[in-house]
């Protein structure tokens, strides 16, 4: 990875200030940052790749709307049975909802632990947008709606162009970087491969492969090994004048540095006290837990993690596919929450979901649904405000109505990714003056914080 000195040199403006100005400014920032950085906080994004059909994750359960839901969803409507009824929660005297039967653990987190909130109909937006504006194309809208790759990028970057070089968590990491000083470990860690989510203008994320031993294989302490390792290090430093070679060298160098730091921190750490699912997502969240466990050794005050679960592109076989995925999601999040609770830090961590988009309310002709827009998401944390289950505005269950972008139930979001992210970032401790640079369209929305934290 880049050394801290290199990072500082890379920050626009520092070079121009010269060394005296640079130190003066650092001193100021340090004095300011020290009190802010007290207490650990972490954000954990679980990205549901493929576009989760949240219409079947959070189901309106009061009689009138359940009938509407059943009528429009047809063969994809979940039946009113014991499993669904067990996951019911009351929002007002007239409004009830139920979580999907396979999200039983999440329902328990909401009803018993008061540690789960739902954000309704959130998605990519430039500004508040009505159906009339969307149809008339009289308001600016995000690029390439309904495309997986573009919408994944928009969710991860809060950039409505569909292509972006930095993610919102990366810019958040840039903004809070001094809170982690003097640690040089990256603020963002992905346990799900490369993602633009964590790429900042001045900081880069670390990647960790769950369950893979840290460090390079095949080196001993003998002189022959040391000579070979020395040569490997020397080759990493060779400036060959070829950009791609140097980018790849830098990647390997950062990998070795991060693995060294994490290896030292985790050596001798006690085992997790909770058994995580053996699934891919379960093991990703177990890895996140192991890294959070050694936050003290890594000297981290603020961390952001990126995990993911794939398979949500349910154009067919939606009922069975979602059933399997939700069971895994629910059990993995529950294990993660239990582990944090066991360590007494459930209120220091907020896990939240993102996804490409939700899916059409109307089913298609072969057992699935197609790409849509705004959807419902979960926030799981011991720091949530008590007593409110749903934030944002739940769409009317109707096609061709005010919430529909067309005629198949593609919800126009009523809350933007910028508002969602800004609420998380504010809890995380970023200065409010930095929010506009992290969430470029936040200014277009009157409500900057959605209030789901206590």
């Amino acid at each position, binding site marked *: 990875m880049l050394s801290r000195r290199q990072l500082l040199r890379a920050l626009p403006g520092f070079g121009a200030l010269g060394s005296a100005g640079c130190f003066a400014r650092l001193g100021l920032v340090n004095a300011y940052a020290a009190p802010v950085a007290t207490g650990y906080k972490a954000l954990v994004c679980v990205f549901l790749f493929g576009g989760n059909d949240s219409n079947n994750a959070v189901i309106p359960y009061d009689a009138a709307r359940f009938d509407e839901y059943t009528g429009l969803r047809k063969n994809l409507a979940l039946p009113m049975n014991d499993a669904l009824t067990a996951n019911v929660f009351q929002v007002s005297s007239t409004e009830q909802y139920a979580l999907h039967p396979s999200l039983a653990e999440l329902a328990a987190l909401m009803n018993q632990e008061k540690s789960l909130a739902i954000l309704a109909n959130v998605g990519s937006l430039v500004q508040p947008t009505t159906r009339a504006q969307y149809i008339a194309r009289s308001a600016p809208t995000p690029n390439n709606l309904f495309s997986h790759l573009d919408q994944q990028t928009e969710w991860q970057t809060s950039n409505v162009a569909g292509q972006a070089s930095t993610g919102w968590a990366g810019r958040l990491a840039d903004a809070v970087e001094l809170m982690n000083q003097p640690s040089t470990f990256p603020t963002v860690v992905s346990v799900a491969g490369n993602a633009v989510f964590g790429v900042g203008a001045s900081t880069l994320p670390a990647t960790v492969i769950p369950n893979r031993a840290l460090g390079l294989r095949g080196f001993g302490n003998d002189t022959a090994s040391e000579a070979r390792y020395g040569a*490997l290090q020397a080759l990493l430093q060779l*400036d060959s004048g070829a950009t791609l070679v140097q980018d790849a060298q830098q990647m390997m160098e950062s990998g070795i540095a991060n693995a060294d730091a994490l290896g030292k921190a985790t050596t001798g750490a006690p085992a997790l006290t909770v058994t995580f699912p053996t699934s891919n997502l379960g093991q990703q969240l177990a890895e996140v837990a192991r890294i959070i466990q050694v936050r003290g050794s890594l000297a981290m005050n603020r961390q952001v993690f990126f995990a993911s679960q794939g398979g949500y592109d349910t154009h067919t076989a939606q009922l069975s596919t979602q059933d399997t995925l939700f069971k895994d999601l629910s059990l993995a999040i529950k294990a993660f929450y239990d582990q944090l609770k066991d360590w007494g830090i459930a209120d220091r961590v907020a896990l939240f979901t993102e996804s490409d988009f939700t899916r059409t309310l109307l089913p298609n002709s072969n057992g699935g649904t*197609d790409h849509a827009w705004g959807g419902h998401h979960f926030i799981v944390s011991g720091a949530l405000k008590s007593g409110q289950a749903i934030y944002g505005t739940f769409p009317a269950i109707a096609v061709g109505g005010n919430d529909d972008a067309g005629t198949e139930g593609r919800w126009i979001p009523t809350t933007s990714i910028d508002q969602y992210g800004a609420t998380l970032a504010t809890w995380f401790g970023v200065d409010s003056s930095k929010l506009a640079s992290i969430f470029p369209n936040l200014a277009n929305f009157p409500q900057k914080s959605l209030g789901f934290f206590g």
Partner: protein
Amino acid sequence: MLVWEDLRVRTISSRFVALLAIPLLSPVFGAVAEAATAQLPSERASVRFLQQCTFGPTPDLIQRVQQLGFEGFLDEQFALAASTYPDPVPDSNGKTHWLPTQQRFFVNAITGPDQVRQRMAWALLQIWVVSGVKLTRPEQMLPYVRMLQNDAFGHFRTLMEDITLSPAMGHYLDMVNNNKPTAGKGANENYARELLQLFSIGLQKLNADGSPQLDASGKPVATYDQEAIEELARVFTGWTYAPLSGATSKWTNPGNWNAPLVAFDAHHDQLAKNLFNGIAIPAGQSAKADLDQALDAISHHPNVAPFISRNLIQHFVTGEPSPQYVQDVAATFVSSNGDLKQVLRAILLNPEARAGDDSATPAAFDGQLREPALFITGLVRALGATVAEVNGLPGWSNTLSQNIFFPPTVFNYYAPSYEIPKTPLNAPEFQIDSGSLAMARADFVNSLVYGKIAGVTVNLAPFASLAAAPGALLGHVNQLFLHGSMDTRMRDALATAMSAQPNAKSAAQTALYLVGSSQQYQVTR
């Protein structure tokens, strides 16, 4: 190690060269290309060429290219029959397994004579993606892989129709059993959307050189809207699997992976459809007539040539071709009516691809990172290792984020548009490299060179005998692995490490490990 300012300067200057210098220098490159037909390629040029169009140079193939020249070598390769995949053999419970098919992929790639055909089929499989994530058994995908091998040097329009009617794609993107809409249920949009977005025209209107067309306010212009997807989805209704042998065909037939889909016009939406660019499909047509008309319209869209050309260039030569390079290849695509043989020839013989053949000519482009499958096969082939039918290579490819036949989504293992963080460089393969994966790549080399991969046998004796004189081994490795580009600092570092080893075999292993794990090797230039 470079610092960011250096990197940025270098990145911008390399782009500058790629975008601006090519037209200025093209007379020079043109001369190089003419010379290539007149005189036979150098060893350096042959190694570079083979890195681009095979699963890795070997001494035999280098010699062959030097004998036949680039064009002659390609002609010879175009004529070779495809390496085979046997049908999966069920176990005692009647179940088939993916692993033997994945292992065969590596056997074919490492030992098959039809190197260029296999590379093309592998590139096509990464553009027209189907995946074992959804196709649960290998016999569902194998006919598709064989079809790509057969269509690898055919015409784009043929490929598009074969793919559209293939049961594997039909199942993967849900065109199969896509019924005409009924009240409250739309047609399945999956294939319609990805056919346009990923397989043919893309999201934005392109110029002939692959750059996006911009509107008056500087924004890209969309190629289609959501309504066009809904209309095209109705074109692709009314198809089911072919009937199994001896069975009566009905709507819907059970899975048949060995024959194209068949139409049931009673389940085809026969209303009129409006596609993109004002193209309309009249009411009352059969499923096949609609499909023919739609595929014709798509294949004639002006985006197809630059979109597919750029994508193929990215799989063979570089993630960031200059606009001129894309335009040159796209012109061949158009003039040859989408003949993939001619397109590949244009990609490989373009002056920009050949610019690094002469060590005195600085490469105008930056090459590409070897994707895991090519990284693995390149090393195994360069080492002259033998590979058994049962081998541990699929597991390693999976560890390196490229599980063969199992791309995670229809967006492949990496996106064509991926840019390296903090740079403006378009380099798709970097999406599956990272700090941790770079180390895993080195771990693969460690296992290969120190002899611990099942089914892969490396004979180190020739390397060890050369290592008795470090200069001899390094000279050989420099030619075979790095087409002679190893600089003196790298040579010195390797020689120092070799001299600290207890014997010649260990010295050879040291050199091979260090070169194989180096970024100088992993990036082909």
